[in-house]
């Protein structure tokens, strides 16, 4: 009679504010493994036993380990606020792994390509799992991190420790290149020839601009979209996103899509504009 729950049984081992307002939460699971792929997410119940918040919040899988995972989240509201107050030893009710990740299921060969990971704000969270996997395979990884100002740049240390080449961009120019993170990609694609595998996660207007840059070079980037979600399992049909084939669901068809699949609306400006 006991329900089968792939994500059950997690315990918090650390929950620390490693960047301002950004927490690293490491979770361990005893017994059964947790077979996740970079870009997949979990739906986290911040507070059991109460009905407000009522639903789970989706968080990208930040690190994948043999006996656990880590999450990296920004405190923006109710649920993430509650999560930030959890302690070592507390259990956490998570559902997952959910969705489709960065690696296309068709098994497309990315072998010879240069990996470029473009992150807007806490969009860096799931990209870290991808960088980790690629570094393990001995591949080179370039990471572009963007934020409004220097103090909002996150995970630069961690990506460097993995052996990634990290560049930053800030809107006010307080760190790295002045401008949007997509400008770093624009610079790269202008200056260098080569085959790039582009992966990205961040706010939708940023992904839209990235999709445009990728299209100009004939690159099909893999982008993880951030849409409001309810169930995370595909039953409520709440997280629809318009694609060239009509609405798809971010939770089960995504959250990672090809950049040319999505019908983008609002996008960031280019760098020369």
């Amino acid at each position, binding site marked *: 009679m006991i329900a089968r*729950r792939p994500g059950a049984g997690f315990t918090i081992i650390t929950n620390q504010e490693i960047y301002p307002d950004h927490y690293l939460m490491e979770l361990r699971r005893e017994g059964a493994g947790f077979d996740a792929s970079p870009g997949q997410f979990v739906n986290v119940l911040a507070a059991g036993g109460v009905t407000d918040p009522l639903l789970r919040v989706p968080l990208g899988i930040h690190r994948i380990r043999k006996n656990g995972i880590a999450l990296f989240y920004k405190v923006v509201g109710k649920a993430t606020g509650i999560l930030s107050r959890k302690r070592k030893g507390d259990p956490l009710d998570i559902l997952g792994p959910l969705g489709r990740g960065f690696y296309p299921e068709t098994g497309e060969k990315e072998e010879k390509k240069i990996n470029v990971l473009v992150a807007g704000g806490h969009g860096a969270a799931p990209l870290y799992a991808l960088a980790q996997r690629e570094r393990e395979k001995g591949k080179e990884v370039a990471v572009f991190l963007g934020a409004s100002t220097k103090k909002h740049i996150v995970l630069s240390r961690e990506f460097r420790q993995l052996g990634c080449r990290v560049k930053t961009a800030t809107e006010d120019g307080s760190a790295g290149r002045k401008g949007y993170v997509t400008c770093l990609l624009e610079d790269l694609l202008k200056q260098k020839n080569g085959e790039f595998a582009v992966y990205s996660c961040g706010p939708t207007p940023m992904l839209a601009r990235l999709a445009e840059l990728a299209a100009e070079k004939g690159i099909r980037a893999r982008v993880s979209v951030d849409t409001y979600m309810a169930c995370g399992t595909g*039953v409520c049909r*709440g997280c*629809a996103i318009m694609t060239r084939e009509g*609405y798809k669901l971010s939770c*089960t068809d995504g959250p990672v899509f090809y950049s040319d699949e999505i019908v983008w609306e609002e996008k960031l400006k280019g760098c020369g504009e």
Partner: protein
Amino acid sequence: MTDLTVRIAGKNFKNPVWAASGTFGCGEELERFVDLRNIGAIVTKTVTLGEREGNPPPRVIETASGLLNSVGLENKGAEWFVKNKYPFLKQCGTNVVVSFAAFTPGEWVKCAEILTDGDFPDAFEINLSCPNVSYGAARGLVAQDKRAVEKVLRAVKAVTRVPLIAKLTPNVTDIGEIAVRAESSGADAVAVANTFQGVAVDAETMKPYFKRVVAGLSGPAIKPLALKAVMDAYRQVKVPVVGIGGIMTGIDAAEFMLCGAAAVEVGTATLRDPCSCSRVLEELQEYLKTKGVKKARELTGRAAKQKGLPRAISKNRKRNVI
């Protein structure tokens, strides 16, 4: 052993805790998380005659202990559904109730014909109450208009042997009156109720959050309102009432049964946790045991028969007054 079986619309169901339409897909989506055999019945996402792409995003937003949705009956159409989902549903190990909706009398009939496959499904849930679509020229819902309710139910009843559960809207002055009309027009049960209409506004942009402005509120926030709607319907009809609205626990389910529900549907709770239906059932069983109630169906209506309630009509004395 507690007897959990219930009989609704002439069919036996193994237990009274069902999965509500639009929150359980057609079961297949959740097979990875849930043992479907524990569900009293799966009520499938509402299908329509033709394919519908659904409403533009955003489609959902959480409110205090509730959820507003404006999904807009996204589905691939009745024929696609029969071809692609019936094979799974027929062997899923539990009872199946297929929910459908249409926009003209002709479409209701056609839909019923397409979806009737011998004795399958166990029942139809006639969705007369989706708040997120427009019906022809009128903005209202079918279940806000007695004559429309009658027309639809009579038309569908004429073309199918499958029992009909009429799903009503709580957005009416007197749901009892609508339930009575549904009963006299051929409904074998009434489902009370669909979502309550609500609005969300984005104070930042000063605009309505949803493109269609009005959306449907579900979840624990509506439970007391839904309990009243169930009680109102129960006191006026003889056919069974299926209670829906904000059920999170077995005690919630018991409360709905005490107010008159013969079975209940769990909706939003499944979006929080895919295993909610099984948990609600386990908790209900525990409650029945604690209370020494041997048969789940004995709960039905116990609290609705008591005196001192507004317009208290004892079920045994005067059932069909209007």
